[in-house]
């Protein structure tokens, strides 16, 4: 019963949608040197190149990726966040990068968008609740941003703080989670080439309900590790107690690596429901990214460090 506006890609067939993107790409090429009006920068992303990190599976339809998910600041219902999220302003936006770094800096979103070439990365996305999608994110490796501030040798972990605005986020006034939403990664995880700073989806600017204007995608971890609407990145020495760890320490760990052999205390993680499919699939170790990331956890007891 939502009254949210329909995104153009919801009513545009995929083929036509791609064609239009191709047209925009060509048009952008032709207008080299032409100065774009500032407003256009918000509505259009620079063309994204394909990435060898993309999986070969076919992406989940845009209407499902943008129409189903968890965004607890707005709602604890998996569709309830979409309407309220539309009221959030994503411009102006700045991200403070600070902590144990040589050059702390505040980045305007416009600068972040230009910092590195955009890539389209088609990633598997596995929610801790047992459903999954295949998502064509647009962004670039988080490492490109992190390197800008020159982390100190003492920095071992990175914290990500999400936006928390009680004026537009109905749940900020309720003590569901300890707001603002806090997530964290070990430094090597944060610098890993798969860890993506996301600014777009399906070639377009990221919809508000998916974490605009920028969020993280860490494809071998459960979805909640990827903070949305990030406003602050902090280099720290110690592992942080993340929002979900605080809420239920026996259910959510710091690592939250996708692992079919370690169950959530209240449900099995052995299988997952891929959105759009009828039968459940077997969940893959590290969500199918074991070749790239298993070495990060060599020798660790993954039952203990869940």
């Amino acid at each position, binding site marked *: 019963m939502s009254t949210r506006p329909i995104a153009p890609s919801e009513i545009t067939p995929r083929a036509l949608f791609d064609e239009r993107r191709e047209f925009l790409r060509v048009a952008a090429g032709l207008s080299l040197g032409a100065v774009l009006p500032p407003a256009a920068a918000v509505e259009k992303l620079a063309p994204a190149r394909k990435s060898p990190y993309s999986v070969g599976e076919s992406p989940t339809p845009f209407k499902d990726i943008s129409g189903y998910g968890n965004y607890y600041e707005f709602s604890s219902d998996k569709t309830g966040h979409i309407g309220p999220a539309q009221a959030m302003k994503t411009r102006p936006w700045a991200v403070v990068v600070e902590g144990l770094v040589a050059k702390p800096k505040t980045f305007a979103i416009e600068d972040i968008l230009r910092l590195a070439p955009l890539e389209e990365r088609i990633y598997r996305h596995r929610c801790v609740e047992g459903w999954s999608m295949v998502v064509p994110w647009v962004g670039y490796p988080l490492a490109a941003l992190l390197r800008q501030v020159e982390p100190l040798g003492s920095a071992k972990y990175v914290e990500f703080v999400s936006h928390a605005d009680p004026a537009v986020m109905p749940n900020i006034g309720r003590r569901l989670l300890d707001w603002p939403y806090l997530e964290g990664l070990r430094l090597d995880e944060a610098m890993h080439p798969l860890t993506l700073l996301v600014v777009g989806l399906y070639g377009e600017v990221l919809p508000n309900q998916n974490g605009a204007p920028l969020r993280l995608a860490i494809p071998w971890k459960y979805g909640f590790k990827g903070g949305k609407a990030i406003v602050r990145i902090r280099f720290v020495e110690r592992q942080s107690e993340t929002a979900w760890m605080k809420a239920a320490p026996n259910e959510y760990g710091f690592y939250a690596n996708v692992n079919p052999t370690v169950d959530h205390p209240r449900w099995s993680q052995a299988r997952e429901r891929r*959105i759009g499919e009828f039968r459940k699939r077997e969940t893959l170790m590290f969500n199918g990214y074991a070749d790239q990331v298993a070495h990060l956890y060599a020798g660790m007891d993954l039952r203990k460090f869940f």
Partner: protein
Amino acid sequence: MIPAAFQLSARQIAAVKTLLFLACLIPLARLGYGAWNDALGANPLEAVIRNLGDWALNFLLVTLTVTPLRKASGLAWLARLRRMLGLFCFFYACLHVSSYLWLDQFFDWTAIAKDILKRPFITAGFIAFCLLVPLAATSNNAMIRRLGGRRWQSLHRSVYAIAILGVLHYAWMVKLDVTLPLYYAAVAAGLLGLRVWWRVQEKRRQLAGAYLAKPKGRVSPIATRR
């Protein structure tokens, strides 16, 4: 006190029961319609399982409001709707459990057994369902007669345990925000609290020696005081 219009004849009661029967099928019809039109959202199978679970619990609580409503209104015929409502609770619970066995587990019996043993929320639902079965099986007049009113009644007291287990099942399933299960818990607590209060009142009356004469002859358990 009660307007004459609310005292129904046998034929009117039959008509009310038919209407109620059809109304009880609306949730299923809506779900079927949504499934047919692909209008159940991105995760339709989850929506089916959850919606059926919701209605099993709704019907359970509605069934438990019949007696308080009858007592408050004095409309004896309300008691004659209780069996149907209870059976609809069982009907939706059967569909809910079947949808779990099929759409969630695809009849993987080892996984199902593990689920029931390992996950408190599934354990609670499973016990609730097992307790519902004998109630549904003894819901016809022949069974009531065979068991006798008293034994039938004490068997059917397990409906209170089912209500508690049903609410626990829901609350333990939820990841973080237990607002909705808490509403259900409040309604269930109110309905069970009423029963406790009635019992206390009755004990008091007995102790005070103001015990009402037992009605003579066979009493249909549906009409007895609960």
